[in-house]
């Protein structure tokens, strides 16, 4: 770990460095760390913003969408002039302007069964800021199999959820299978309060930074459920499920390259 922070870094990160729980060692750990953020939309925007500001040294961004005008109500790293551009390009420019310490790799692609393992391979922590069940189940399985910590976040109208998955319990311990296709609306269909992904994304970024620093208590083993309407935070305990197909006692998912992640997100026998 490189502790030789230069004068500009000592100034930029001074509010971290003076903290006993971070200090120069913690800041150096952040600068040496790598995080893959899947999705540069509502959740990905605040995650990228805060990870870059904190000095996470290597950030990967995976997203195959372009910026749309209807995104700008919540996706705060993109601007009016970015409409029509790939989100990964807009996000990369935002980070470059915010913090030159951060190296960015962009992947203008959807995360698929064919590329999931190789995408996550080089990163310390993965962030699920995606917007669909196939990607969520795929990332869960790939991260559990590769022993990579995964920060999960999701938003719907006034409601947000976040948890941190570090090897079990996992997302499938809570939701063994996705619901039948079409039964759950997405943000485009149901709407989402513009500031809501800011709250949940900031919580995800907090979790990632704590994992890198090895400080504090994460959301491992509990799901945070936030109701912006009632301004309440609930915590739901999640127990490891012995019957979980990916992290249970007799798991039958041992690869993400086979099976089916569309629709109900179950793997074939």
């Amino acid at each position, binding site marked *: 770990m490189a502790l030789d922070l230069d004068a500009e870094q000592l100034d930029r990160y001074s509010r971290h460095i003076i903290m006993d729980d971070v200090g120069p060692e913690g800041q150096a750990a952040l600068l040496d760390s790598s995080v893959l953020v899947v999705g540069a939309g509502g959740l990905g925007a605040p995650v990228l913003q805060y990870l870059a500001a904190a000095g996470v040294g290597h950030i990967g961004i995976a997203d195959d969408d372009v910026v749309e005008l209807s995104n700008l109500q919540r996706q705060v790293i993109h601007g009016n002039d970015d409409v029509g551009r790939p989100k990964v390009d807009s996000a990369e420019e935002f980070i470059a302007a915010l913090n030159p310490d951060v190296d960015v790799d962009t992947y203008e692609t959807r995360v698929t069964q064919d590329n999931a393992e190789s995408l996550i391979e080089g990163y310390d922590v993965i962030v*699920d800021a995606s917007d669909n069940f196939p990607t969520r189940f795929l990332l869960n399985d790939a991260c559990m199999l590769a022993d990579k910590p995964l920060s999960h976040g999701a938003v719907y109208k006034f409601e947000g959820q976040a948890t941190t998955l570090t090897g079990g319990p996992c997302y499938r311990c809570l939701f063994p299978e996705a619901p039948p296709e079409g039964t759950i609306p997405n943000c485009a269909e149901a709407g989402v309060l513009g500031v809501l992904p800011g709250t949940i994304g900031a919580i995800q970024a907090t979790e990632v930074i704590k994992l890198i620093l090895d400080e504090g208590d994460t959301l491992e083993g509990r799901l945070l459920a936030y109701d912006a309407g009632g301004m309440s935070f609930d915590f739901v305990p999640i*127990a490891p499920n012995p019957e979980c197909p990916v992290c249970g006692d007799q798991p039958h998912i041992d690869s993400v390259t086979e099976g089916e992640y569309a629709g109900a997100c179950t793997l074939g026998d």
Partner: protein
Amino acid sequence: MTVTVELAGEGSHEVDAAGKTYADLLAPFDVSKHEVSVLVDGRPVPEDQAVDSDVERVEVVRLIQGG
């Protein structure tokens, strides 16, 4: 036989669970069994299964995909 049913982030109801399934416990909420996971002691239970007599509390978590 009364069970406390809490939908995370949306409040709780006391439900008479005698002779009912876990899916029946969702009646006070505006959700279908396809939209949620029903948890007992932090683990999902089959929604078409009868409520166990020793269960006093059930947590319900909505499946959300938006990001």
